[in-house]
């Protein structure tokens, strides 16, 4: 067994919170910069120019890219040969989140009770943690802070299989178009297809972690991604929902086998500041 110390994970998670909030990942910056040339609307171009300038200020001055520093959502790959000493993995990630949000002057946006009390927990905990057990002796932690504006535009539908490809395409395109300027377009569109009710939502979110524009390995699904993206960008919603050619940077589809009776589809959007950061130990 490989031993990893609880305190080491806390330190790494705290640092990860700051990195995710301040430093727009290279793949995102690249796609934003490319879109400046592709966008033909003057207003759209001006917004994209502001995104580039904003990312530079955030990186240089160690400021959050967006004031909504999000729900801290972690995707963890835990090697089966790893033993955590001095505490639990959940505990370490939670403590690291609280410390990172405090030390980084990040906004705490979590309320303790969704319906009645709605009192801010004051340290942006609890985080959402997805743990996958994998072979090996490594711990890989990815943080994807998720803002409320784009998260609120998510949708899930349990189709009958007869809806087929066209049903899926219409649902995804309508979800993105109806969201208008709310999720801060251009967005990255995560789509889950298949599995069960809870699995499909997870797939849609997981799809957002993929390097922007990288296609599904399955050629049929890769083609579907291209087809959906073209339809979304033909809508004219554009940057900030105020008109233009680029409404989404990419569509990422993840699929999973499903029940003979089902065709679950979920859509999860990421704003143009598609933040993510990771570490491995």
């Amino acid at each position, binding site marked *: 067994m490989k031993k990893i110390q609880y305190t080491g994970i806390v330190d790494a998670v705290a640092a990860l919170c700051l990195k995710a909030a301040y430093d727009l990942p290279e793949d995102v910056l690249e796609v934003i910069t490319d879109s400046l040339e592709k966008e033909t609307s003057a207003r759209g171009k001006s917004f994209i120019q502001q995104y580039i300038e904003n990312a530079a200020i955030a990186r240089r001055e160690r400021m959050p890219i967006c004031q909504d520093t999000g729900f801290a959502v972690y995707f963890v790959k835990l090697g089966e040969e790893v033993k955590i000493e001095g505490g639990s993995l959940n505990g370490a990630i939670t403590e690291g989140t609280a410390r990172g949000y405090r030390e980084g002057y990040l906004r705490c946006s979590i309320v303790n009770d969704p319906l009645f009390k709605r009192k801010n927990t004051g340290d942006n905990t609890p985080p959402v943690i997805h743990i996958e057990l994998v072979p090996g002796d490594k711990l890989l932690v990815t943080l994807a802070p998720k803002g409320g504006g784009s998260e609120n535009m998510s949708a899930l539908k349990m189709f009958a299989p007869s809806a087929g490809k066209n049903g899926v395409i219409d649902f995804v395109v309508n979800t993105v178009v109806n969201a208008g300027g709310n999720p*801060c377009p251009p967005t990255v569109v995560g789509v889950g297809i298949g599995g069960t009710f809870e699995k499909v939502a997870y797939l849609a979110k997981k799809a957002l972690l993929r390097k922007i524009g990288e296609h599904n390995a399955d050629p049929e699904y890769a083609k579907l991604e291209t087809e959906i993206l073209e339809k979304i960008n033909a809508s004219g919603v554009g940057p900030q929902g105020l008109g233009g050619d680029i409404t989404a940077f990419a569509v990422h589809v993840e699929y999973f086998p499903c029940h003979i009776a089902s065709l679950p589809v979920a859509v999860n959007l990421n704003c143009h500041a598609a933040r993510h950061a990771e570490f491995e130990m």
Partner: protein
Amino acid sequence: MSIIIITTPLDDTLVCSLKAGQEVLLSGVIYTGRDAAHKRLCELLDKGEPLPLDLHGQVIYFVGPTPAKPGQVIGSAGPTTSYRMDAYSPRLIAEAGLKGMIGKGGRGQNVIEAMKKYKCVYFAATGGAAALIAKCITACEVVCYNDLGAEAIHRLEVKDLPLIVATDADGCDLYQR
């Protein structure tokens, strides 16, 4: 298109001169407010009690900034999605004299009707440009609801805040074009 320079507070003449699609640089005092603060203000209106601030001619910016680091006026401060305030904005426009709102994303028909009837303008700020926008904010202090943290009502002084007239007082709406 030329850029319009405006200063708060806003009066009906100025509000009615602004047209959807125009680019604006706004300076002066504005107030922050999000879901929780709007709910409290409307609860006071329900009870017929006075509001903790005079909103006549004023502008509310839908924002919950990040905490200021030592030496900073404010942290990052981009707009939040405006439709969540649709349940409250018409009352602030009709009963409290609110003349302007700043946010991102389209507004409901109920808000647009109130804007037309009582003369109010809705500006779009650039969502996700929060560090850039913070550079336009020269002063920040809490007015009330300090217990709400980032959602407290703050008084901001802004200089040349870049905005677009998204919905004007005639009801022309850039999001619906």
